[in-house]
Structures are given as C-alpha cells and as structure tokens.
C-alpha cells in the first residue's frame, strides 16, 4: 500500500518538474535576449570600462578605497536605467580620468524624504558636520539599491535592525560617543517580543526600528514632533496595536488615550522601549531611577520642606508593589536628569481606578474636593500613599477593624468633619463602638457592619440625598445587605411604603434601632425605649398602653412585660385586621401564650390599650372608673366631714383632760408628804 502511494507521488513529481524546467528555460532565454539588447547600448558602459575592474582603487584620507561598481547589480537596481550620470550629474561629458565626483544628492529626486531627513536627528547631525552621522547611502547602499519590498534591499524589514545596529549597538563609536539614553539597543530589541517575531520567527510585519522611529523623520523623544514623544507614543504603538485600549481599559481611560496622553502612563512606562515584552517591566529600571534620590531619608522638598523620602520596603509590601513609580507619577520625563521635574500635578488614582473615581467624584467627599475644600479627604487620606494595602490586609487602614478608627480621624466629636456637621447624629464614633456592630467588630468579627458597610466606601452621601445609601428610602436595602431575611419581612410589613401606602413618613430600620447606637434587641435599654420609638408616630396608642399593666410595669423598668413588638411583631408588623397579623383572630391566643402559658382566646379579650378616658371605645372601663371614683369621693367626704366636725370637740376634750390632769397633780402634791416625793425621786 505504501509502495503504491510512493509510486503515485513519483508520477506527479515528474510532471511538475517538467513544467518548472520548461518555464525556467523560457525565462532564461528572455533574460538573455534582454541582456544582449541592453548590452548593445548599456548606460554607463563607458564608466564600467574602468569601474568594472575590481582592482580599481583610490586613496582617500590615507585609506585605500575600492572604486569597483558591480555593473550587473547596478543594472538590476532601481536606478539601473538612469545610468551613472543620472546621479553623478557633475561627471556628464567629463574626460577620463575624471575628478572625484561631488556627493550624490538623492534629494534631487527624493524631495520629500530629503526634507524629512534634513529635519531629523541624523540630518541635523550631518548639517553640524558630525562625521558619525549617517547619510542616505549608509542605510540604503549606493549602486545596488533595490525596492524596499525586495528581500535583498538593505532596508528590507529583516535587515533594518542590523542597518540601524551598525551604529546603535554596544561598542560602536556612536554608542560610545553620543548621548543616547538607551543602551544595548540592538541586543535588547532582538530579545524583545518584536525582535523575536522579526528575527527568529521571520514575521516581516513585526515592527522594526523604523516602524516606531520612522525611516527618515527620526527625532529624539523630547521633540514633540517625534513619533516616540510621550504625546505621540500611543498613536505610534496603536498603528499596530489598534485596539490596545480595550485590553488596557482598567489602566487607561479610553478617551484620554489620545486627548490627554500626558496624564496617562505612556506605553513605554510599562513596556520599556526595546525590551518590550507582553509582561510588565515596571519594577526594574524606572523605579531604580526614582530611588536614586528618593531613597534618601533626608530628602526634602524645597518649597515646603515636606519629606520626599520613599521607603522602598513600604512600596514593595504594598498593593502597588508591581506598579512602577511612573505609572502613578505619570508626568515624569525619562530624558531629564530629574525625570520628575516635569510633573505638574498630583497622583491621579482614577487613571487606573476609573469606576471608583467616578463614584468618589459624586460622593460628598469628592464634591468637596471638587470645591477645593482643604478638609475633604482624597484617596490618600484613607488609603495612604506608597504603602497602600488592600482592604483584605489586616494591616490596611481600610481593613474592616480599622475602618471606624479611620473615619474617626475626621468624624470623631470635635474633629474637622464633626465640627461642620449640623445633623442629628452626635458621638458617632463613641456610639458605634458601644453598638452591637462595634462590639462584634471589637471581638474580631470582620463581616459585621463598619462605617463603610452602610455609608459605602466611595459613594458617601448625606442622608438627605436620594442617592445616599442611608437615605430613608434606601436604608432597608442597605441594612438588608446583611440582614436579608429581616428586610424581606419588613418589605411586607405595614411600615413598607409598598404595603402601607401611607403618605406620611414611614419608619425605616434606624428609626427604631438608631443609626449608630444600635443595640441588641434583647438588651434592657432597647426593650424599654421601644415604646418611645413607636410612640413618636403612634402617640395616642402608646399613651393608652401606659394606662395598662404592661405599660405601667414597663415604665418602672420591667423588661419582661410585653412591649409593642412582642404583640404586634417587630419587622412583620401588620394591621390587626390582617389575617397574617400576630394579633389576628387566629393568631392572637398564640401571641399571648408567648408569655402567658395556657392563654385562651377569651384571655386575649384583655384590652391592652384600655383607657378610662374614652367612654365610647371602652364604656365599661370608663364607668367602672367613675363608679369607683364616686365611691372614693363619697367615702372621703363623709369620713372627712366626720373628722372635721369632731376636731373642735376633740380639742375641747384635750383641754379638759389637761386641766383635770393638772388639778389631779396639784391635789396629789398637796395631799402627799414631801418624804414620799423624795423616795419617788
């Protein structure tokens, strides 16, 4: 079977080989024809008479220079048809041996390129008379120039790195004697992802030197017109990486990419030039540059004597340990001795933390910052600077257990935020610390509510703002994020807007539980305070509660007596007419049984809000009260009158008694002899 297959292949191979040979034969004969035709009157044939000799040399600047011109190559070059004098125009009609011809001016034909070149780094160097500066021929060659697309071209993509590398590699006079910020350019490039693609994988569309630096308009990156100027880098890179902003969305806001490239980290801040990899090269060289100065603990800013010391270990332990200095301090200019001297503004965290930045800007903190309020906290007031840590890190200022202390810096009584606050909440921090949330947090329960759990971290707004997480309309949802089951109950209760349909202001969580001093509901204080809370709206019914046993003993501090919510339910409070209510006909006995074991439906007939002030609603109670009061008054009037009438007679009796006693005494002292009195004494 394998043999048969081979045979078939052999058969096909023979046919193809025949066809190729035939084509080649035709092509060859055509070439010969053309060559013989050309040779008949080949331009520059005269010149080649001498310059065709490989041995033709001359001495320039004490160096032997070959004057050989490969006629065949010249003829095959793009300029072959122009003849020698097409370029060496000054030799037209000259006798042999002619003078050293003038330098060929390519710009005669290549006007546009010449102009670009003249303005370029290389062109200016030539104008300065820099002997190391390259001219057209240094890159393009002279007599054997072929189209760029031709693989044989000296400036074909695969060759460009080496063309540039003639000068721009380690050890060359250019690299040694000229100020070029980058080193080992060719070496780095060939190891970069671009160089690898081009040189190792033969990907001819991979960027070469000229792709970024352009071919003729090469300018230093400090020149605003340069393709590699900070402002233009993004545009240069996006020539190939056209949708790079999509994958860099988290780092760079799309619309800023081209509009305000100066505020953004440029591509090269992360992907260093010539060493480009598909990973960050951030922590290496760039940071070391900054740390040359900023590692000095004594470094201070002249303007305000602020310490400019940056602790490398702090940064390396921070959340941003893999972020380069220049990614945050984005206006640095690497070409300066002090790259940071071009920085005009502070760190803008939103260039990476875009979403959070938007939220922050709408928050009260952000609004105040926008108004240049010096008290308003920006990112760093809470998150710190170089040592920024994630909120999951127990050392972080934003770790759950540290949040109240963090907010307290401004919101503790007497501090700058508390001083300007005009609302009802006071002793916020102290109250929170003693609240159930605060106690749990102190006990290390990190999932309990801290300031940010209710107020959010970045979208803090005053409660009057409808967008605020602590606005009355949003409070149930905010609390419900943790207390979900309770929120569900509450949303179905009479107090929920949807159910109650009341136009009056309905209570939400904090109206009963308070905002910051939230207690366990089985604590005495909560149980005793609730009537006052319910009574804020249910004034009359709370009053009548205090006319009954439950209310009276509650007022004396007896926590076990039934409070409002013991009967009505707490979060699931409903109209008593609602069959689902704890006080509905079907449920009321069970509700009483919570305290009064064995309570019956008849027991529940006790009027828990009875008052003797309301004859219409509670006639029996009313008339019993007045009946008893009548009995009381009657008895006291009769008893009191009897006593009052008695008084004068009683005083009379007292007088008579005293007189009688006095008489008896004098009578006795007159009767008895003094001796007996003496024994008595």
């Amino acid at each position, binding site marked *: 079977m394998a043999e048969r297959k081979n045979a078939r292949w052999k058969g096909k191979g023979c046919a193809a080989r025949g066809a190729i040979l035939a084509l080649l034969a035709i092509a060859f004969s055509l070439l010969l024809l053309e060559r013989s035709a050309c040779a008949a009157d080949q331009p520059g044939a005269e010149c080649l008479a001498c310059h065709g000799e490989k041995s033709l040399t001359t001495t320039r600047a004490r160096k032997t220079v070959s004057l050989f011109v490969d006629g065949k190559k010249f003829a095959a070059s793009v300029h072959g048809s122009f003849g020698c004098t097409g370029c060496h125009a000054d030799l037209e009609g000259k006798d042999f041996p002619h003078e050293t011809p003038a330098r060929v001016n390519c710009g005669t034909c290549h006007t546009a390129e010449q102009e670009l070149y003249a303005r370029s780094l290389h062109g200016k160097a030539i104008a300065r008379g820099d002997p190391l500066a390259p001219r057209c021929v240094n890159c393009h060659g002279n007599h054997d120039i072929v189209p760029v697309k031709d693989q044989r071209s000296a400036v074909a993509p695969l060759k460009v790195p080496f063309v540039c590398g003639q000068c721009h590699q380690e050890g060359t006079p250019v690299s040694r004697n000229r100020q070029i910020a980058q080193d080992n350019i060719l070496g780095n490039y060939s190891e970069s992802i671009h160089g690898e693609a081009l040189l190792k994988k033969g990907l001819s569309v991979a960027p070469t030197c000229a792709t970024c630096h352009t071919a003729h308009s090469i300018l230093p990156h400090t020149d605003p017109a340069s393709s590699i100027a900070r402002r233009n880098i993004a545009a240069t890179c996006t020539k190939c990486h056209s949708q790079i902003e999509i994958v860099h969305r988290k780092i760079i806001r799309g619309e800023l990419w081209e509009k305000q490239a100066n505020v953004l980290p440029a591509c090269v801040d992360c992907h260093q030039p010539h060493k480009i990899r598909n990973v960050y090269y951030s922590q290496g060289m760039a940071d070391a540059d900054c740390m040359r100065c900023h590692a000095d603990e004594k470094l201070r800013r002249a303007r305000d004597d602020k310490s400019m010391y940056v602790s490398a270990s702090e940064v390396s332990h921070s959340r941003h340990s893999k972020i380069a200095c220049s990614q945050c301090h984005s206006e640095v200019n690497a070409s300066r001795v002090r790259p940071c001297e071009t920085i005009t503004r502070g760190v803008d965290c939103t260039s990476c933390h875009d979403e959070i930045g938007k939220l922050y800007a709408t928050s009260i903190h952000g609004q105040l910052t926008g108004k240049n309020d010096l008290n308003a906290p920006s990112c760093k007031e809470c998150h710190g600077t170089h040592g920024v840590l994630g909120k999951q890190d127990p050392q972080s200022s934003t770790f759950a257990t540290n949040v109240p202390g963090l907010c307290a810096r401004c919101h503790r009584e007497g501090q700058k935020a508390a001083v300007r606050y005009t609302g009802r909440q006071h002793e916020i921090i102290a109250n929170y610390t003693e609240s159930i949330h605060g106690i749990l947090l102190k006990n290390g329960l990190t999932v309990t509510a801290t300031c940010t759990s209710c107020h959010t971290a970045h979208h803090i707004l005053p409660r009057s703002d409808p967008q605020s997480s602590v606005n009355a309309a949003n409070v149930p949802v905010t609390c419900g994020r943790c207390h979900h089951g309770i929120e569900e109950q509450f949303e179905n209760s009479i107090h929920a807007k949807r159910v109650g349909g009341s136009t009056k202001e309905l209570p939400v969580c904090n109206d009963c539980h308070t905002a910051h001093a939230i207690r366990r509901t089985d604590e005495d204080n909560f149980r005793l305070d609730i009537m006052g809370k319910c009574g804020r709206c249910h004034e009359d019914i709370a009053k009548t509660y205090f006319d009954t046993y439950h209310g009276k003993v509650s007022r004396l501090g*007896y926590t076990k007596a039934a409070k409002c919510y013991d009967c009505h339910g707490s979060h699931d409070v409903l109209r008593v007419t609602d069959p689902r209510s704890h006080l509905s006909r079907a449920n009321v006995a069970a509700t009483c049984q919570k305290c009064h074991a064995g309570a019956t439906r008849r027991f529940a007939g006790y009027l828990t809000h009875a008052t003797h002030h309301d004859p219409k609603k509670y006639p029996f109670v009313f008339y019993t009260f007045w009946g008893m*009061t009548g009995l009381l008054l009657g008895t006291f009037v009769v008893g009191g009158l009897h006593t009052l009438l008695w008084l004068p*007679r009683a005083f009379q009796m007292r007088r008579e008694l005293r007189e009688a006693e006095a008489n008896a005494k004098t009578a006795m002292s007159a009767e008895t002899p003094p001796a007996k009195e003496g024994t008595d004494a």
Partner: protein
Amino acid sequence: MPNRDVAELQFVRFTRLQRILHICMIVSFISLALTGLTLKFSYTKWAAVLSHLFGGFESAGYIHRSAAVVMFGVFITHLVDLYRLKRREHSSWRSLVLGPGSMVPNRRDWSELVGTLKWFVGRGERPAYGRWTYWEKFDYFAVFWGIAVIGSTGLTLWFPVFFTRFLPGSFLNIATIVHSDEALLATGFIFTVHFFNTHLRPEKFPMDITVFTGRMALEELKRDKPREYEALVASGKLEEQMEEAYQPIVIRTIRAFAWVALAVGFSIVLWIIYAMLFAYR
C-alpha cells in the same frame, strides 16, 4: 408581780392574737400599699425610686403577692378566732352577732352616731360609748369589704389565665380599676380617717398604742367607753380583765414601730396627694 396594786393595773382590751394580727396587718398592708401604688402611680419619679428600692419591679411584685398572702392569712386566722370565740362563749352565731361585744352595727350605733353628730354641733352631750364605737365598727367592716373586693380582684389579676377560662378578658381591665381604686380608698381612709380617729385625735395625740399593748388605763376606759366600764363593774368582771402594764422598754419598742408605721402611712398619703394633684395622667 410583788404587790398587785390595782391602781397600777391596766384594762386588757385586746387579746394577744388580736394584737399580733393587727401588727401583721400593718406590715402586710403597708407593703401592699407601697408596692401597689408604685404601679398605680408609675408615672411619678417617686414610683421609680420606690420600685428600685424594692429591688426592681419584679421583686416588688413578689413582695406584693407575699404580703397579700399574709393579709389573707390574717383574715382567715381572724375568722377561725371568731369561730373559736363562738364555740367558747356563745351558744350560737346569733348570740355572737347580737351579743354586747359584737362588731355588727345595731340600732344603738345608729343612735350613737346621731348623738355624736349632735355633740359635734353642740346640741347634746357626748354619747356614752360601749366596747365598740360605730366608727370602730365601720373600720372593722371596711376591712371585710376591702379584703373581699381587693382580694378577689387581686387574685383575678394574679391568675388571669385561670380566671379567663370563665370570665371575659376585659374583666381583667375592670378588675384592675376596681383593685387599684379600692386600694387607693383603703390606703387613703386608713392613713387619714383611721389614723385621726385613733391616734391623732387631739386628746390621744400623738398616738394610742392600745392596739399594740392590748392594755388601756382604767381612767381612759371610764372616759372613752363608759358604758362598757359600767357593764364590767356591774357584772364584777372588771377585776378579771386587769393586768400589769408592760416594761418601759417594751413600750418604747412599740412606740418606735408605731412611729414608723405612722410615718410611712403619712408619706404615702402625701405621695398620693402629689400624684393625684400634680402628676395625674
């Protein structure tokens, strides 16, 4: 006991059991009044202070119910004592009720009341009262009435689940009002009218401790209960009922106790007046 000098002896008016019962009654009554009124006037600062003194409301409740049990005990003991009195001295209940020492008001009490009122307005002599005056009888039956009314409603409130098996739940509301207002009547009456009639009457001021010692001076008997005195002299039984007075230390102790009871009683009256007039809700 060396020389039984008749002049030094005192007339025994109350038996030892009666005196003990009266002391028990005072203690339980004041306890009930204080603990109960803290609840009735729970809206005054006073009530909160008192409730706290009693160790909180819960403990005040225990004291109230314990005192109620003592009160019931006093009442039942008295009934048993009455039964024993009937067995000992009377052939029938009728004789007990209609006898000369009976507490049950009769026609003579009515005429004494009329006579007393005439005396008050200066239209007659002071009636010659017997062993029990009409106001003493009123006080005695007021206790019967009070125990019946306050005791029954109190039990209803103590055992509401049991009582609502056959009474409507709203009866508890009625019971609350009756219990508390009747108690107010009792405390108010005892600490004003009763106090005046027996202790603060100018001729007895500041107090009459007969009910604690059980004894009274013969002179006093002659003056206050002339009819009884005469009856005793006539029957020749007076001598049997004369006993020696207590030692001064005993008298002092009794006086101290009586002063405390008196002071507490008056404080309660002041508190009630304050609560009713200035803090009423």
